[in-house]
């Protein structure tokens, strides 16, 4: 029983992390059709800025958290301005390959300016403590992660449903031209999408740093790849789909780790992707495909 609850919490926290990243990918895709391969590098940028601020200025975790969030939002907006604005009206493959190129550039910049080896930044480790809830040991980080993700998704939903800009963003995901004709600036809508994406990447970065305690050029790659799979599984561009896909991936991963024998641990990711491939065979467009993809916006 303890074991089952423990694994359930594991699955929830994994799923929460993937959902956070996947929503960041989906919101940019739904607005401008960009598959943002550079998302993982935004997360890594958060890690590097934490390492730099942490050694030069202050070790205060609250300041550092704010710093990570600001850094991720800033770099996300910068990438939009510098790289993605030129391909805004291009087809999906052009945007995708641009993002792919940006991701290579950033990774190699981290290699050149930073180091291929991990740089330690341990200020967030304190988030990860073992708590006793009755007879069960739980990690406080997992609880923070799940709660933060749920709160972030609630705030995002509220923003998209209630605020002026949020409604414009939802409209833009259906028909950008129409939104512009209504007198809303395209740049503001796109920039907001990138800012939200960067903010979610920053949150994910804080939790990843709390778990790892060090930053490497490729640290964003694995979680973002899984988040991409989550987006595809949920239906690319659908925000509920991204959340659903993220949690499915979290549960699948924990399930595979529990079921597979210890010796096959290296194949866990492969097994998860294989299950997803089978799910996609059943539903090639993902589980919650937005209706727009099926006809009106081709």
């Amino acid at each position, binding site marked *: 029983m303890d074991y089952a609850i423990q694994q359930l919490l594991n699955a929830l926290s994994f799923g929460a992390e993937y959902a956070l990243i996947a929503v960041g990918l989906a919101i940019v895709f739904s607005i401008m059709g960009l598959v943002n391969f550079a998302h993982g590098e935004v997360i890594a940028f958060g890690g590097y800025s934490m390492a730099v601020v942490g050694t030069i200025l202050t070790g205060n975790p609250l300041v550092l958290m704010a710093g990570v969030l600001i850094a991720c939002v800033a770099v996300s907006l910068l990438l939009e301005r510098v790289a993605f604005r030129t391909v805004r009206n291009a087809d999906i493959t052009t945007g995708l390959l641009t993002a792919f190129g940006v991701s*290579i550039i950033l990774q190699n910049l981290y290699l050149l300016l930073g180091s291929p080896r991990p740089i330690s930044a341990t200020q967030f480790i304190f988030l990860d403590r073992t708590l006793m809830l009755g007879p069960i040991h739980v990690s406080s980080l997992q609880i923070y992660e799940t709660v933060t993700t749920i709160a972030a998704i609630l705030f995002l939903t509220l923003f998209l449903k209630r605020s002026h800009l949020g409604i414009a963003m939802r409209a833009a995901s259906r028909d950008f031209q129409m939104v512009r004709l209504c007198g809303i600036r395209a740049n503001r809508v796109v920039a907001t999408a990138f800012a939200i994406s960067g903010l979610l990447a920053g949150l994910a970065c804080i939790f990843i740093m709390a778990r790892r305690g060090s930053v490497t050029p490729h640290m964003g790659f694995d979680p973002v790849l899984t988040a991409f799979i989550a987006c*595809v599984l949920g239906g690319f561009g659908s925000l509920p789909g991204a959340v659903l896909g993220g949690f499915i991936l979290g549960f699948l991963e924990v399930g595979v780790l529990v079921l597979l024998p210890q010796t096959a641990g290296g*194949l866990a990711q492969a097994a998860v992707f294989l299950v997803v491939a089978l799910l996609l065979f059943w539903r090639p467009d993902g589980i919650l495909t937005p209706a727009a993809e099926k006809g009106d916006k081709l």
Partner: protein
Amino acid sequence: MTGVFLNTDQKRGLIGSTLLAILILLIVGAYALWGESYQARILYATFVNLIVVIGLQTFMGNGNYATFSHAAFMGIAAYAAAICVTPAAMKAVSLPDAPWGLNAFEMHPISAAFVALAITGAIGALTGLFMSRLTNVSITIVSIAILVIVHSIFLHRTDIFKGNQALFGIPRVFGLGHVTALVILAIVAARLFRESRLGLRLRAVADDEVGARAMGVNVVRARLVAWIVSTLFFATAGIAYAFYLGTISARPFYFNYVFLTVAMLILGGLRSVTGAVFGTLLISLGLEIIRWLETGPTLVGVKLPEMLGLSGLLLGIVIVGVMAFRPHGLMGNREIEDLVFRRRKTMETSK
């Protein structure tokens, strides 16, 4: 049916591939006349990359999808060919724990190559069942998943693949001549595929999927066949790689190689075989110049890890720059014969 007679585009395709073949032969000839022996290796690697990039063009270029799994198929073929062709006595040393009697037989290189092609083609067909049904973005993501799955299997089954260690003792049966022949074959095959009925359908799907469907194009089948054909190109490249180097490991068949080959295709232009050839030659030349600069006396204090970062950085800049300023690459929709002979005005398409 017009089985024997080629239509105008296909005839132009033959002319174009002949021109490209002459270009390849000129390069090899220049090497034979003035080249130094260490350059044979560089030229061989370039030609292996060229086969991969041409293979990428058949699916990624004609269909306008971004796929990143080619290094995985190349790896599968390289390992399959290597395990088949290595003498049993050598495998007793290099693969002592291999299951299923993999270390107890040996084959002629030709039959080993065909076994490797068949295995890779079969895996291509199996993955193609998924890939051909997916939509644009999902194809990219699932192709990355394939790359990760295959790589983790290479790393995990050290008893068969040796993981990051080298699988050594493969007979070095290929030379520059073999790979030159394969490159020319690949160019002709890719060009004929592009101008074939299937290639035309695939390009139509890339331009307007709904329109192509409405005209009766079986999109799933067009994608499936193109996907399998492209895996066969990757398999050929993988076999040529293993048969020349004599040792292989899992490390080269991963993301760095994917970056390199995708950048080559993008620079030249996704839509034409000529673009694939030019892009590969230009980037290979560029990387050699960078390496030469880095070892040269003009640049001081550049260490090895930084060197890796620098060439990667330039590849990324090439991709972003081409996408921003010339989204269809150097060649766009043109092939080499369009530069030499003008296409008749009626043939001109609006795009």
